[in-house]
């Protein structure tokens, strides 16, 4: 995959020009006003262009090789992260990372459990993380950590970014279905606040296994659906290359998920998308997470369980 997608080319070029001008101006006050006007213009242009994005273009952005991953948010939003490894049954799956952390940063921070799908940057790391496609061990580790959080009353924050649970021989032998099902069950019964954020790909059951939350957030350019556009295309037309067409009918965007109630809040990304500004994306997400957490603060243990139950119970399109 090239580092710049064809449809973002004009914006990326303009942003590059502004960066160059800033270097040339070198803090010279005479150019500051002019530069700011130019930057505003580029932002506005980017916003306009990105409002018109097709579902398939959003899917491509969600997979952008320079898009921030779970670990990048972990670094920017949390303190004192202590990674916890292993499912205590078979192994440790690097496709899911989890552990204790303090959130938010600063004096108001409290201990939380943070769990997310982790993609790897670069071929070697991507392979080690299995492209964030977990095996059963990953889900069993996640479940163990959720249970731990429940017993010590730590809020659970999850970050979703997976093409899907891994479809492999070993995964089936070790009970991929059961592992995901148990995650759903455990999550639905947690007596602590649970907030899930889709930060990249929300690939089907493998994503939902970390998604049974009181509040579900999604970044602006993600996909979250029952099936990937490629798999959808290969079922409908026996041709995975028709993914663009499949995305049009499947509508796997954050905006559609919001409309249907599967997502509660869409977090706007910086101009041009998250990959142009990791810090800016993290700041926006931080704000949304604090707000979501604060909204759950007054709820008791059973109220949290009931709130989550009701949230999912009403989802569906049914004619009675």
């Amino acid at each position, binding site marked *: 995959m090239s580092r710049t997608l064809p449809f973002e080319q004009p914006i990326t070029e303009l942003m590059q020009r502004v960066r160059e001008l800033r270097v040339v101006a070198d803090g010279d006050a005479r150019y500051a006003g002019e530069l700011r006007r130019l930057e505003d213009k580029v932002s506005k242009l980017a916003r306009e262009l990105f409002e018109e994005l097709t579902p398939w273009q959003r899917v491509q952005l969600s997979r952008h090789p320079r898009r921030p991953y779970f670990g990048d948010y972990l670094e920017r939003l949390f303190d004192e992260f202590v990674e916890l490894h292993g499912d205590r049954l078979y192994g440790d799956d690097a496709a899911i990372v989890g552990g204790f952390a303090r959130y938010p940063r600063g004096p108001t921070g409290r201990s939380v459990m943070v769990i997310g799908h982790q993609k790897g940057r670069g071929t070697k790391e991507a392979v080690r993380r299995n492209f964030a496609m977990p095996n059963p061990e990953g889900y069993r580790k996640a479940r163990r950590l959720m249970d731990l959080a429940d017993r010590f009353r730590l809020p659970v924050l999850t970050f979703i970014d997976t093409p899907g*649970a*891994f*479809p*492999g*021989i070993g*995964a*089936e*032998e*070790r*009970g*991929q*279905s*059961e592992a*995901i*099902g*148990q995650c*759903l*069950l455990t999550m*639905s*019964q947690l007596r602590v606040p649970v907030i899930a954020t889709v930060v990249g790909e929300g690939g*089907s*059951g493998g994503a*939902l*296994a970390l*998604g*049974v939350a009181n509040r579900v957030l999604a970044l602006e350019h993600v996909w*979250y*659906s*029952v*099936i990937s556009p490629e*798999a*959808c295309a290969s*079922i*409908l*037309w026996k041709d995975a290359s028709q993914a663009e067409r499949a995305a049009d*009918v*499947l*509508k*796997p965007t954050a905006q*559609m*998920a919001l409309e*249907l109630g*599967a997502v509660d809040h869409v977090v706007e990304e910086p101009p041009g998308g998250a990959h142009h500004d990791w810090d800016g994306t993290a700041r926006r997400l931080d704000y949304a997470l604090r707000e979501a957490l604060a909204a759950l603060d007054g709820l008791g243990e059973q109220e949290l369980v009931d709130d*989550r*139950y009701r949230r*999912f*119970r009403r*989802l*569906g*399109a*049914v*004619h*009675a």
Partner: protein
Amino acid sequence: MAWNERVRPETDASEKRSAGKGVFRKCDGCGETLLAEVLENNFEVCPSCGAHHRLRHDGWRRLILDRGELVEWDRHLEPADPLQFSDGRGYRERIASAQKATGATEAIEIGRGHIDGLAIGWGAFHFTFMGGSMGSVDGEKIARLFERATAESLPVVLLQASGGARMQEGILSLMQMAKTVAALGRLREAGLPFISVCLHPTTGGVAASFALLGDVNMAEPKALVGFAGPRVIESTIRQTLPEGFQRAEFLLEHGMIDRVVPRTSMRAEIATILRHLRR
């Protein structure tokens, strides 16, 4: 795995031809030609080799429930079309033709029946209705099954036969996995048993939600039970899958189900288990 990924047909491929007075069918297992009536009376199990052919939902009621009687719940629920999904043929049109072909309103029936005089909450997927795929109506019915069974203190027996979550309802189908499992959680908290019976096939979003969370998990002989469809796995790992992979016996060997139960002893086994779990 989505609902309409190809699964090797069982009954569909069985040869039907008239010869003399009776109608004959060929067994998918041993290839023997049998009187159709013989197969039907034996709940679609071959008397020679024991191969299990697909049994229609009315057959399942007759096999498991006392007098084959079910008081059906919530039959009036019908699917909407939240995405206005069309792949050339519209979702509404597909639903209408599935309803016409099967006589069912959706891919699952729920209700109240009895086994050996004990009242139970019953659910059964119709694989012939869009591959038994789970959409909003199916998820809603399963949630209502668990909730109503909880309210009425009934054990639940649920028969799965499904290719997974229904693609045509997009993310809402996915959400049914969370909704149904959360409702199952309430049944569990009430101390009521859930007997899960996996028929051929049980895959995708149905497998990865409630199907393997039974207090007792059973499967029919040779039923395909798994998360990913065999074709998806083969194309991912570029390997041919071993014989018997993801079949009921494979799951038993790997510790994922309690018992492989032939259709002929299914009713008796469920009755015995329910007696053990009666408080």
